[in-house]
């Protein structure tokens, strides 16, 4: 496991406290690059050091997942894709796959959404079309195929097989959003996969750009984009908390930084150096 000492005490105490909610062996849901990744929580999670994590990418992953893998905290990743986008492949992930150091559960985006939907509805599964004949399905013994009981055709048409995705329940969902109010209502706008993650999670940890004083549920216009406090366990402010990713409607991605990481993290040593240097920078 990556050891990074001398900077932990510089981390935001609120984020450190939130990271304590994560214990070894938990299943953690993390959002797609552009939906609001709480990059601010990455170092507190690494400092916390709770390992054997099973990550669920909703529905794909990037920098944060690569860093947690690089830090040795990850046991498995369920994802439909993992890369640094324009900055190329995810180096610590790719290495870990090659080394067999992590279990990879390849999925397809709508199957991850289907699993979360099942959890949201309290259902054991959600059906999904497609997938039949793919090696994605062939490598997922946890998914099942049944004959559609509503098949319309005549018996001569034969059965109509359909895949069932089991519910994805997670221990913790972690994401970043533009704002929250004092009651803990979080404004997620049209990034409704963040709500799906929270519905499916026992604990939801949110970092935000800012706290607003008026209730986000007080007027119908902002209420339409709110994840209610009912689903939110804790909120902490982390300005530019998605950096180097962007946050929709707030700021763009820092592609140069992603590329810098992509280059540095090609080796384990380069990754460790990057994390150390970045930590010092962050502490300044």
């Amino acid at each position, binding site marked *: 496991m990556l050891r990074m000492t001398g900077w932990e005490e510089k981390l935001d105490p609120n984020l450190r406290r939130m990271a304590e909610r994560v214990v070894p062996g938990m299943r953690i849901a993390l959002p797609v690059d552009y*939906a609001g990744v709480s990059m601010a929580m990455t170092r507190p999670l690494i400092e916390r050091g709770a390992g054997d994590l099973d990550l669920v990418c909703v529905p794909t992953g990037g920098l944060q997942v690569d860093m947690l893998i690089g830090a040795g905290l990850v046991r498995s990743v369920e994802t*439909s894709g993992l890369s640094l986008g324009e900055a190329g492949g995810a180096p610590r992930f790719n290495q870990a796959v090659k080394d067999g150091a992590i279990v990879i559960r*390849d999925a397809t985006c709508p*199957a991850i959404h289907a699993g979360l939907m099942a959890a949201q509805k309290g259902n054991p599964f959600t059906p999904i079309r*497609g997938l039949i004949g793919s*090696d994605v399905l062939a490598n997922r013994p946890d998914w099942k195929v049944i004959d559609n009981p509503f098949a319309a055709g005549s018996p001569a048409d034969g059965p109509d097989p359909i895949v069932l995705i089991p519910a994805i329940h997670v221990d913790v969902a972690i994401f970043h959003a533009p704002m929250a109010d004092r009651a803990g209502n979080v404004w997620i706008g049209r990034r409704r996969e963040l709500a799906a993650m929270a519905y499916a999670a026992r604990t939801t940890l949110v970092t935000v750009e800012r706290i607003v004083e008026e209730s986000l549920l007080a007027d119908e216009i902002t209420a339409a984009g709110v994840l209610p406090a009912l689903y939110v366990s804790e909120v902490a402010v982390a300005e530019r908390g998605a950096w180097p990713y962007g946050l*929709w409607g707030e700021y763009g991605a820092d592609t140069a930084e992603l590329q810098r990481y992509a280059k540095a993290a090609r080796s384990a040593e380069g990754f460790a150096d990057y994390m150390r240097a970045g930590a010092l920078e962050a502490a300044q």
Partner: protein
Amino acid sequence: MIASVTPREILIATIARLLDGVHHVAVGASSPIPAAGAMLLRALKARAGAEPVRISILGSVEHNFFTNGSTELFDCAGQGRIDAFFLGGGQIDGQANINLVGAGDYPRSSVRWPGSFGSAYLYFVVPRVILFREEHTPRVFVEKVDFISAPGVSRPGIHRTGGPYALLTGKGLFAFDRARPGFRLESVHPGHSLGEIVEATGFAFAHDAAPPTTALPDPAILALLRGPVLDDLQETYPDFAAQMRREIAAAADAA
């Protein structure tokens, strides 16, 4: 000057042709050539006063017409509201199987690519899937993919309303025959040859003895592409648009 048409312009114009008749096409945020083809079609239809073409650019904030999170693209496709989509692949084989996961033995792939994304679903439910991969080498176009992210064909009885329609590469254009099943070379891009394509393709495909050359855009289409379409493109893909403008200028100088 026909001679000044760039290879990318040929790809874009070909994509616009392949999309003819669609009402709604979805394009990945990092797919500027397919996006440009869709924008060219939209401009052509607008000019002709035909039914408008809707383009959804995924992952873009400015051109995001969805409001229900990242699940909406798939729901929309499942509802039959997306007529065309583009898929690529680290490997593509003669049955139109695509591999977006990795080369070598799964799961410890010797080369790992990002993953299957939505392909294992969209390939089944989008009627006109265009396979697009500029790199045309035996490394990409293999006899059999190492991992099937999404299969090109399904046996009878499998619910499938979509699938492969064409394969466009840097060297040529193939149509896909779902009945046979297999690819057929439709045309060879200017500057390339049948022999070169046979050499660069790891799977067998049908072709005429002397396949035609891929049609060049006519001057009116080219003007549309270089004018309003490139301006549209600039908003979402500024780097790509700038690069195209440089290529066009260089081609004009050479001609």
